[in-house]
């Protein structure tokens, strides 16, 4: 049978990083195929290949049974592949009006005339909006997109994509900015389009949405397809099996002895991460590693950033070592010995072209400049000591950080905090894009720090959690839904805690803009 879209052996590398390692799957005509994957699994790269933003290094793409090459976004459109990117701002022109945005593609089309008029533009915009069942008033059409909320922007992008009448619709996390009602409307529209013969590739990690919408689900992990699932006789997916593929890895020998835990050092009370999430209390001990396990959008990054003073949340207070922590800037956290290793290494930790030692000493430049002049020798010596202690594989402390592998880069940005004595260490997804050996070293380092200070590790990966944790907190919808010791934790227990609440899981950024 002829498939709407078929991928075979797609590979893509960024330098030493093999993001896609031979991905293949098929989307049948009139089917909603859902692609699931944890952070860094390669979903976004795959979508960029399909939308023409990246070209693949190997493998073939077939549309309607014919091998095609997608050179650029335009050729993807020509082939009938319409893509809605995760970030709605990538699909709208902020300083144009709603009408101009909706009609943009017909301006760019070959049949477009030289002249445009507001009347034509608005008429065309109404047609496009009608595809989504949107009611538009002249006032709304004349609003600048910059003045719209995220969810309205998202709907505009969708309408624009649909106006090109794609045969294959690729949606990357389309609901992350939408309210419940908007999601319901979007799903109804998708079902309608599918019954007219369109095929949909729906990329998400929200179990609830897949359960509601998808015909089949494929799991992508570490750049490879891990399995494909259809609904069982009762018309539902076997979630434990799916989640096992999503998280499972080849068994490794990274087991460790559970630490007992020491004093309660950090007390968090009445923390409310999202406007509609329940406040919770939490205490963290030294002498153990606590893992905050939750999917993207569960609010775990928000919680860490709040503790570190780089973000505000709805409410809550923190006490560290019996002293209240009232801060509004990371500088204050650093001076209290509270350190964060952020989630996104490239955007949030690394400065392009800098050497290992300068990346390491950046938070502590004062310590290395007795008056104002930097003591380069002391800086290098301190960096060298850390490099040896935590086993960074590098030609020396003066090489540029970008020449290292992902795992070694991660060691450097964790190791910088060992230049001082941490009072409380926070790590957001410290194992992302890190190979197995570096994972082992990083886990060792983290456990070493926990001897003298509480350590909180946020991750969305069960296996990583089991590797490093003494205590596991399952985090969902902005609060803790399960709290267990490592010895009590089994994959089944965690999966059930995660999937039980997965339906309520949603990112709460829609109204904040």
């Amino acid at each position, binding site marked *: 049978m002829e498939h709407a879209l078929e991928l075979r052996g797609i590979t893509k*590398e960024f*330098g*030493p990083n*093999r993001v896609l390692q031979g991905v293949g799957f098929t989307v049948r005509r009139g089917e909603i195929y859902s692609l699931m994957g944890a952070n860094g699994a390669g979903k976004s790269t795959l979508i960029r290949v399909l939308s023409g933003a990246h070209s693949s290094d190997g493998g073939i793409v077939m549309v309607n049974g014919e091998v095609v090459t997608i050179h650029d976004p335009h050729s993807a459109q020509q082939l009938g592949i319409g893509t809605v990117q995760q970030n709605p701002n990538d699909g709208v022109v902020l300083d144009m009006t709603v009408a101009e945005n909706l009609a943009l593609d017909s301006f760019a089309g070959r049949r477009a005339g030289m002249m445009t008029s507001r009347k034509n533009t608005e008429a065309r915009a109404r047609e496009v909006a009608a595809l989504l069942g949107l009611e538009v008033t002249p006032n709304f059409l004349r609003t600048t997109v910059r003045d719209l909320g995220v969810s309205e922007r998202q709907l505009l992008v969708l309408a624009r994509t649909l106006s090109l009448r794609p045969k294959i619709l690729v949606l990357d996390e389309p609901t992350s900015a939408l309210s419940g009602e908007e999601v319901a409307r979007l799903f109804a529209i998708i079902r309608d389009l599918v019954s007219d013969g369109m095929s949909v590739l729906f990329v998400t990690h929200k179990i609830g949405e897949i359960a509601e919408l998808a015909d089949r689900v494929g799991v992508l992990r570490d750049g490879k397809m891990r399995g494909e699932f259809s609904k069982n006789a009762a018309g539902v997916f076997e979630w434990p099996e799916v989640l096992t593929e999503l998280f499972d890895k080849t068994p490794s020998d990274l087991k460790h002895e559970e630490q007992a835990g020491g004093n309660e050092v950090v007390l968090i009370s009445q923390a409310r991460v999202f406007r509609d999430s329940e406040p919770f209390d939490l205490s963290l001990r030294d002498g153990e590693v606590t893992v905050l396990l939750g999917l993207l959008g569960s609010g775990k990054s928000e919680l860490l950033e709040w503790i*570190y003073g*780089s973000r505000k949340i709805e409410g809550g207070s923190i006490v560290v070592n019996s002293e209240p922590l009232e801060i509004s*800037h*990371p*500088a204050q*956290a*650093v*001076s209290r010995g509270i350190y*964060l290793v*952020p989630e996104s290494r490239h*955007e*949030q*930790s*690394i*400065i*392009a*072209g*800098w050497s290992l030692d*300068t990346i390491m000493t*950046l*938070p502590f*430049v*004062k310590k*290395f*400049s007795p008056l*104002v*002049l*930097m003591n380069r020798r002391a800086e290098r010596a301190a960096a060298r000591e850390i490099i040896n202690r935590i086993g960074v594989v590098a030609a020396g402390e003066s090489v540029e950080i*970008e020449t290292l592998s992902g795992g070694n880069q991660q060691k450097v940005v964790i190791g*910088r905090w060992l230049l001082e004595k941490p009072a409380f260490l926070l790590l957001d997804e410290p194992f992302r894009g890190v190979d197995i050996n570096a994972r082992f070293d990083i886990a060792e380092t983290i456990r070493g720090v926990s001897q003298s200070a509480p350590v909180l590790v946020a991750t969305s990966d069960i296996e990583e959690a089991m590797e490093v944790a003494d205590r596991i907190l399952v985090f969902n919808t902005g609060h803790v839904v399960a709290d267990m010791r490592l010895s009590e934790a089994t994959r089944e227990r965690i999966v059930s805690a995660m999937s039980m609440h997965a339906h309520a899981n949603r990112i709460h950024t829609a109204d904040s803009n």
Partner: protein
Amino acid sequence: MRFQRKQFIVKVEVTRSRVLGHMFTEFLVRYGVLAMALLLIIAFSFLIPGFASFSTATAILQAQAVAALAALGMTLAAVVGDLDLSVGATAGLAVTVAALVMIRYNLTGITAIVACLLAGAIVGAINAVLIVVLKIPDLLATLGVMFTIMGLKKWLVDGQTLTTGMTLPGGEKMPGKFTDDFSAIDGSKLLGIPISVLILIVVSILVWIFLERTRFGRLFYAVGGNAVAARLAGVRVNRYRVAAYVMSGILASIAGIILASRLRQGDVTAGDSVLLDAVAMTLIGFAVLGARKPNALGTVVGALFIGVLLYGLTRLGLSYFTQDLIKGLVLLLSLILSFSLSRKRVS
């Protein structure tokens, strides 16, 4: 790991000439500007009698001192990631302020200097508020400030050039004149070197030490390199951006003080050409030693390069109105060196 192997194979396969070609490109990227400057100096020394002399060197430095100081200010703002287009106008404002203080209000030279520095700091602070607090893009904010200041300095003197002993259209006679101590800044020499040149040398060294050796310089580069990462490492990003603009304004006003001392009148068009020269020097600086980022040494080398080139060509009979053309071409060449040829570029 696969990546490295690939590179290795490529290396084995390239022919000898390609290796040489690659080395030549690398040489150009690192030493292109310096080599060209050296070649120019040698060539001019043969072509122009008396070129290789101390007096020529000070003449070149004196000619470029104003723009070079403004360029050092612009370099500081560029290090934190912003471009300050208001440096030329700020230098011009300092000329007007100096003339007002001394000619119109008949105050001392020291008062004029303090007033100029204060004016520069205020302009820098306004830039900082617009960019850091009101979140206006740096180019647009400093462009707006540039226009405003150009207008302000005309308005302050009713569009007149303030000269000693002049009478305003209203019949008011100007009581004062440029004081001797103020005029000495560009007019007198110490150890055979004009004081303005000494100021340039001292400021250059200070800016270099600040950027390359102090923790503040390190933090400036961190802010410019990745403001998000800097903030998450506990750096007070906004404070450093504010500091960079204020310092840029002060350096621009020092440039203006030297210019005023040279002109000895409140010329309303003074400083208008400083901006483009400063941009050129700062950007040529990117190419010095393959830095690919704003840096003090590069900016000074850029100033010297332009100075040598213009001086030599003028002595060889090139008319002054081709100067901008030459500066533009040199700027484009150095941009090619630092952006197009450089292999450091991460793809």
